[in-house]
């Protein structure tokens, strides 16, 4: 999910949008189409998804610590 640099340089999301990862999509919406509000909304969704993933990670981490 944190993949941007390599896709941006190698394919720019193309051909078409076949290799467009979500970071790149947000970047294009915000800085190519200059639709900042749409970009921000995408950012918030990404943020929520990361929080859920991160929360699961912390839960696992702490459970393992209690066992140890």
């Amino acid at each position, binding site marked *: 999910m944190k993949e941007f640099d390599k896709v941006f340089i190698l394919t720019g999301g193309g051909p078409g949008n076949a290799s467009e990862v979500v970071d790149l999509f947000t970047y294009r919406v915000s800085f190519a189409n200059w639709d900042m509000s749409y970009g*921000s909304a995408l*950012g918030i969704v990404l943020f929520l998804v990361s*929080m859920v993933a991160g929360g699961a990670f912390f839960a696992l981490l702490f459970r393992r610590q209690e066992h140890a």
Partner: protein
Amino acid sequence: MKPRTRRRVVMVVTYAALIVALFVILTPYIWLILTSFKDRVDAFAIPPKILFTPTLDNYRVAFGQKGFTQNLLNSVIVATLSTAIALLVGVPAAYSLARFRMRGNTAFMMFLLAARMLPAIVLAVPLFILFNTAGLIDTYGAMVLAYLTFNLPFTVWMMRGFFLSIPSEIDEAAVVDGCSYFGAFFKVVLPLTLGGLAATAIFCVINSWNEFLFALILTGRHTATLPVAIPQLLTPYGTYWGQIAAVGTVTTIPVLIFAFAVQRYLVRGMTGGVIQ
């Protein structure tokens, strides 16, 4: 098989696997360095030339005529400033988080780590809007602030681990012997974590050095760092692969040196604080 021969076979297989893996990983990098010393004909010769007359033209054009020296300087300035500020703010913060029990300690650490886990683009959009409103686009200040978003949490987490690995009896002893809290921190604890401090600083520099997305969005002609300057060589008149390779080689050299210097601290720093 005898245990001795078996062990030897395992050794041989392990080393063979390692060599293959190293070869796979290093080939692109070696190719980059080789290409940077080739002229345009040699770079695209088929079959690829291993032996060729090396030339320094690519370096001369890229850094002499095309202004990549300025980009190199930009990279150095931004990485240094942002590392310095991250250490200045992050090290005392890490120390207090490691030593004093406060409400919301854990929550604060988690919050810092969460900031580190976000995809960079989530921060890039609001940062761009903020800096644009403040008129900070294409300034070093904007870059330094943006890089602090990942350097500061990193510094706090790393240094907290190093501080936790030093028993708090040491600072207590210093206080008993007449040091103030600040004296104990600066004169006793900080010198003990000097190795960790250096490692943290170097990691901050490497992270800032390699950063691409923030640099892409927040810089313009005057402050572009090396990673975002390289694509300038993909021009409508053709791609200057030799010069790209030359700039790429120069970009990776400091990282290589630093990485070798701190590799043994990485694991210790990341785990030191967690397993308490």
